[in-house]
């Protein structure tokens, strides 16, 4: 059986290199037959695509898509640099 670290590395590479996603900052963790995706993206469709590409790269694992969508909201407080 392939070591989980190599599977995680392969999934992470797929997320970065697959033309549908090209997402570099996603953390991939594998525990047994469970695969966890964590990180932040700018839209819900990108999150879904990442789940799909991860599933295709490791179809034998159950994917938990825990990626957050960061909505660009109101600007916060100003910072004064002096």
């Amino acid at each position: 059986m392939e070591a989980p670290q190599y599977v995680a590395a392969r999934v992470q590479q797929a997320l970065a290199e697959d033309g549908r996603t090209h997402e570099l900052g996603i953390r991939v963790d594998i525990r047994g037959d469970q695969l966890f995706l964590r990180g932040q993206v700018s839209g819900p469709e990108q999150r879904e695509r990442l789940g799909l590409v991860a599933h295709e790269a490791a179809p034998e694992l159950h994917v938990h898509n825990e990626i957050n969508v960061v909505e660009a909201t109101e600007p916060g407080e100003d910072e004064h640099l002096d």
Partner: protein
Amino acid sequence: MSILTDLRIAAVGDIHLGEDVRGHYRRSLAGIEDRADVFLIAGDLTRHGTLQEGKLVAAELRGLPIPTVAVLGNHDYHSDLEQEIADELRDAGVIVLDDDGVVIQAGGRKLGVVGGKGFGGGFAGKCASEFGEREIKNFVSHTRSIAEAWQAALKEIEADHRVVLSHYSPIKETLEGEPHEIYPFLGSYLLAEAVDTAGADLILHGHAHKGSEKGMTPGGIRVRNVALPVLGRAYAVYCLTCADA
């Protein structure tokens, strides 16, 4: 020292716009002219660097009511269409820096902005050097020539304030939260050294989505990581105080 004499800089990076969020980002910029005098964008405007995405970003940024300056990020280079994307942005009224500088009139002051994409290599004591294989030498010399261009541009510029706009980080403090193993791909101390030598009031960068907002160069110049996932808001606003109020 009144608030009226502040130069207000809105900044963000890594907006990574795609078709599914068309219109959303622009809406979050409503009223930016009441909050800031200038808008600086620290690269990674697209996801895959396609021309289609470049046009989408240009449409989202077109005709903003305050001067807008951008650099590109590594994602914007992915399809080898960085020139075309920069042209789309320029056509939409965005000033795009490519290892050069510009002086803009903002809040009654002259603001000099110098920068470009930047590049990696790592940080002092734990970095690549121009030694060995051609591939490694090319990697390091790419960063070195960028740093030299910024230093020259900073020295040349005449303005009340000078800000450096980069995609890659000049320091490691603002990478805090990223795995240490990838620091050499997130920035280079050569960028900080160049800016410390020439002098500036503030350095803005993106790229490290899991990094931290605030840090400082060894020379004491404030650094802010304005990657959208780090900020968790549409943009940050930094106020530079003008001394002769």
